[in-house]
C-alpha cells in the first residue's frame, strides 16, 4: 500500500479530529452518491408517499419522522445531501478552473489585463456574496444549473486573487526567468512552470470554499430561490420544515439542519488540516 506511505497522507492522519472529519465526510458522501441503496423510500416517487403517514414523529418505521406529505425525512436527507454536495462540488470545480486561470494570467501578464480582471474582482467583493447570488437567481429563476453558475460567479474571485498573489512572487523567482531564458513562451511558463507551484494554496482554499458554496446554496434554497421544489436540497428541506416548525413538527427542519451542520463541520476540519499540512511555514 504505497499510498498510505505517502508523506502527506501520513501527516494528515496525525490529527485525529481531521481523520474523524474525513470519515464523517466519506460516510455522508457515500449516502449522497448512492441514496437508493440506503434510503427506505424514494422521496421523489409520489407513489411511495402516503398521506396517512404525514407528520409522524421519529419512530421505528420512520427513524427521523415524516413531513406533511408522509415523506420519510431520513430518505429525503440522503437525496437532499446529494443535491447539496453536487452543487457544492460542481460550482467549486468550475470556479477553481475560471478563477485559477484568470488569476494566473492576471498575475503573470500584469498591465491592463491585470487591472481589468482585478477591478472586476474588487467590485464583486464589495457586494455581499448572498446579494449577488440573490440577484442572479431572482433574474434567472430556480434550477440546479443556474444555481451552480450563480455560486461560481460569486466564488471565482477568491481563487483568482489567491492565484494572482502567489504568481506575483513566483514569477520573480529564478526558475521562471530561466524558463524564459530557455526560450519558453509566456503561456508555457505560466501553465507549465508557475502553475504547479501555486496549486497548494488553491487546494486549501477550495476545500474551505466548498463548505461556503454548500451553505450559500442552502441559504438560497431556504429563501426559495435555489433548487426547484421537485429536487429538494438540504436547504429546501430546512425551509420546508421551517413552515411547520412552530406547530410542533420540529423534526422536519431540525434533522436536515443537523446534517447540514455536520457536513459543513467535517469539510471545515478537512480544510483546516489541508491548510496545516500544505503550508510550508507551519512545517516542523
Amino acid at each position, binding site marked *: 500500500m504505497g499510498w498510505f506511505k505517502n508523506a502527506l497522507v501520513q501527516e494528515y492522519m496525525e490529527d485525529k479530529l481531521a481523520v474523524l472529519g474525513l470519515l464523517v465526510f466519506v460516510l455522508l458522501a457515500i449516502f449522497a452518491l448512492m441514496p437508493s441503496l440506503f434510503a427506505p423510500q424514494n422521496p421523489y416517487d409520489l407513489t411511495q408517499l402516503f398521506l396517512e403517514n404525514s407528520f409522524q414523529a421519529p419512530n421505528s418505521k420512520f427513524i427521523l419522522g415524516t413531513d406533511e406529505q408522509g415523506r420519510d425525512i431520513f430518505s429525503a436527507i440522503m437525496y437532499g445531501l446529494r443535491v447539496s454536495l453536487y452543487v457544492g462540488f460542481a460550482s467549486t470545480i468550475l470556479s477553481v478552473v475560471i478563477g485559477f486561470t484568470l488569476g494566473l494570467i492576471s498575475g503573470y501578464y500584469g498591465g491592463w489585463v491585470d487591472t481589468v480582471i482585478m477591478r472586476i474582482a474588487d467590485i464583486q467583493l464589495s457586494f455581499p456574496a448572498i446579494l449577488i447570488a440573490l440577484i442572479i437567481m431572482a433574474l434567472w429563476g430556480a434550477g440546479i444549473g443556474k444555481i451552480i453558475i450563480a455560486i461560481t460567479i460569486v466564488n471565482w474571485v477568491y481563487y483568482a486573487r489567491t492565484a494572482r498573489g502567489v504568481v506575483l512572487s513566483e514569477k520573480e523567482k*529564478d526558475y521562471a526567468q*530561466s*524558463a524564459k*531564458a*530557455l*526560450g519558453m513562451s509566456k503561456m*508555457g511558463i505560466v501553465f507549465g512552470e508557475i502553475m*504547479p*507551484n501555486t496549486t497548494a494554496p488553491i487546494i486549501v482554499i477550495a476545500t474551505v470554499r466548498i463548505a461556503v458554496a454548500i451553505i450559500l446554496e442552502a441559504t438560497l434554497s431556504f429563501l426559495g430561490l435555489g433548487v426547484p421544489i421537485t429536487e429538494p436540497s438540504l436547504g429546501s428541506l430546512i425551509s420546508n420544515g421551517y413552515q411547520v416548525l412552530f406547530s410542533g413538527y420540529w423534526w422536519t427542519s431540525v434533522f436536515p439542519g443537523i446534517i447540514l451542520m455536520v457536513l459543513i463541520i467535517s469539510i471545515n476540519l478537512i480544510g483546516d488540516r489541508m491548510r496545516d499540512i500544505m503550508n510550508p511555514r507551519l512545517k516542523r
Partner: protein
Amino acid sequence: MALLEVKNLKTHFFTRKGLIKAVDGISFSIEKGEIMGIVGESGAGKSITGFSLLKLIDKPGRIVEGEILFDGVDLVTQTEKQIQKIRGNDIAMIFQDPQTSLNPVITIGEQMMEAILYHHSDVSRKQAFASCVDILKLVGLPAAAERMKSYPHQLSGGMKQRVVIAMALLNNPKLLIADEPTTALDVTIQAQILYLMKKLSQDFHSSLILITHDIAVVSQLCDKIAVMYAGRIVEYGSKEEIIFDPRHPYTKGLIACLPKLNDDQERLYQIPGIMPTLLSLPKGCYFKDRCELADSECDVYPPEQCMGERRVFCHKVK
C-alpha cells in the same frame, strides 16, 4: 566575423526615482570558442548586460540603443517570437543560484526534456531522455539515469549547478552566458564547476561569457576580460594585458584587492569608498571620487584610448 558583436549597447531603466543607466554604451566582441569574462562590483551592470543579450529585460527597463550582432543578425530588432527560438537554443544562460533556478515541483528529467522538446518537435521523448542522461554523465553527475527522477531538493548545491549547466548545454548552444555560476557554491566545488565549464565549452565549440565579481576566477579561465564600472566598460582587453599589466586605476585596485597566501600584510588592500548609485553619478569620470590619481582633468568623462585590441577609459593612461 565575430560570433557576437555588441556595439554601443544601452539598457536603461525608467523608474519613478529617475533614469537608471544600468548599461550605458558598452561594446565588445567574442569569437567562436572564445571565453570572455565580465568583471565588476555588484550593481556595475554585469548581469543586466547578460540579460540584455537575450532580451530578458523586463519593464521598466528597455534596450534604448545599440546593436547585438549574433551571427550577423541584430537581436535588438528581432521580435519576441524570433528571440524565443534563439533562447536556450543558440544562446543559453546559466543562472547565479542553482537552488532557485530549477523548478522545485518538477523532476530534473522532466525539466531537461522540456528544454529539448520545446525547441525540437521532431525529437521523441525517448530520444530526449537518452540525450539528457548522456549530458548528465558528461557534467559528472553520478547515477544519471536515476537522477532524472529526482526533484531539485533531493540534490546538493553542486549537483544542482551541474544539472543547470547540463540543461544549458542540451541544445548545443553557440554561446553560453554564465551569470556568477559559482557564487552560491563552496570554494572546493567552485573550481570543479569552472573547469567543467571551460572543458565543456571547448568540447562543444561554444563561446562563453562569464559574469563574475571575482577577478581571480576570470584570470584562470578567460581569453578576454571586460572590466565594468557603473554601467560602462572601463578597461577591455586580453587576459594577459589586463591581469599582468592593468592600466585603469580601478582594474589595478581590483587586482590589488586579491588576498595572497604568501603575503605578510596585516590588512588587504581596499579601494576606498563605494560605487556611486546609478541615480546620482558624478560629473566626469565615474571613478574619480575613489581614484588616487584624480584631478581637474577627470571632470570630463575620459575618451576611449585604443592600444591595439585593448581599450581603456582613463585620462591618466598615456
